């Protein structure tokens, strides 16, 4: 009976701790969550767009006050869902870039600033949509979002290229680390005279050549995106840049298989 209050206190403390550990923290908001939000909002948008098409055709057919009211509500819902879709899409690509290892830090910061600005615009635009007004007002609001989307498009592609480029850089960085230790080991073998290192050194040069080609292709990809800069980056320039990055990655695959061969050769006598 003497220790009962202490035991109760500990029990309470543990239960509070457990409850606290189960509540989601803001830090848990990662790409997976952001992407799930985007998919959810995009689904709402798709349904809203179907409703809009239906009520629009009814309004154009009957021109009654009721059909006008329905068309207004459907359009308003569509504009709101569209803004939410874009807002969550921007957040998803931001999170993806943030979590991609290898992406250039300075470039990341620039893109984050641009994305945050666009997210803020869409939130503001969503709030400003009038709950009552005319269809013409909504058309005007939609046109504002349309021009914003057109200026946003290069930012989408730029971010996607930064994500893909980050993946390439990450693999290459790791390969270069392996290559450096491999060169050190070969130098050690040369000094000890255990093996003829001439072939190994030649293979190292070949591997370095592949890595250099990979870098060239990566730079070509960024050049393609930069050339389409100034708000005119289109899907085609994105695809061209992506193609260069895929080529760059292919060179890294080949370089990796060269590394495996060199390591295997070290493991055997001449």
């Amino acid at each position, binding site marked *: 009976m003497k220790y009962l209050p202490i035991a109760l206190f500990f029990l309470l403390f543990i239960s509070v701790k457990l409850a606290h550990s189960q509540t989601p923290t803001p830090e848990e908001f990662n790409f997976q969550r952001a992407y799930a939000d985007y998919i959810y909002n995009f689904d709402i948008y798709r349904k809203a767009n179907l409703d809009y098409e239906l009520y629009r055709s009814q309004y154009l057919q009957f021109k009654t006050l009721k059909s006008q009211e329905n068309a207004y509500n459907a359009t308003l819902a569509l504009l709101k869902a569209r803004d939410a879709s874009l807002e969550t899409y921007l957040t998803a690509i931001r999170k993806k870039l943030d979590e991609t290892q290898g992406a250039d830090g300075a470039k990341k910061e620039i893109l984050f600033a641009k994305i945050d600005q666009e997210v803020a615009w869409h939130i503001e635009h969503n709030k400003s949509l009038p709950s009552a007004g005319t269809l013409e007002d909504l058309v005007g609001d939609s*046109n504002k979002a349309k021009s914003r989307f057109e200026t946003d498009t290069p930012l989408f592609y730029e971010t996607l290229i930064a994500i893909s480029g980050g993946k390439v850089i990450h*693999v290459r960085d790791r390969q270069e680390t*392996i290559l450096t230790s491999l060169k050190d080991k070969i130098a050690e073998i040369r000094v000890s005279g255990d093996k003829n290192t001439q072939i190994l050194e030649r293979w190292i040069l070949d591997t370095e050549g592949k890595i250099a080609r990979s870098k060239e292709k990566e730079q070509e990809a960024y050049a393609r995106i930069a050339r389409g800069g100034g708000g005119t980056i289109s899907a085609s320039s994105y695809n061209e840049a992506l193609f260069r990055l895929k080529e760059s990655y292919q060179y890294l695959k080949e370089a990796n298989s060269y590394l495996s061969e060199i390591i295997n050769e070290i493991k055997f006598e001449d």
Partner: protein
Amino acid sequence: MQQENPTVQSPIPTPNKKSDVFALVTELVSKITRALDSLKGKLFTRPTESTVEGGISEVGISAKTKKIVTVTAATFFTLIVILITVSYFKGRISKPAEETKKEDGVQTTIIERKPSRYASDEVVLNMETDTKTLEEEINKAEIEEKSLIPPNLNFNINFNQ
């Protein structure tokens, strides 16, 4: 001085199974041909020039002759079918033998190499593990973010006909 061993030759040669069948068929065909030749003179009567109306000659074939000819033709046809079948199976049996000959021509040489003192070197083993891990990651990774392609949204909002 080498002494020749007197070899006792059997009067009937012992060919292999395939040539045995072939020889049997050939012998049968030749026997049938000889039989047909001998029958030819007996069966067919020399046409007697009996003048029917208008001076046309007739050749008479008895019912028995017709029957014998039909049976002979049927036997001949059956023999031809057997010949074709035998030659077809002979070809099929000999095919795999050719394939094995080809395989015998290709030889793989396995060179056994002696491991160096670096085969168990910790640094080398670490590098090997890192390279393998990286290879797996490279093969798994997808450069393109297909799920994050910009959404296709409807911006064509208007109420014109």
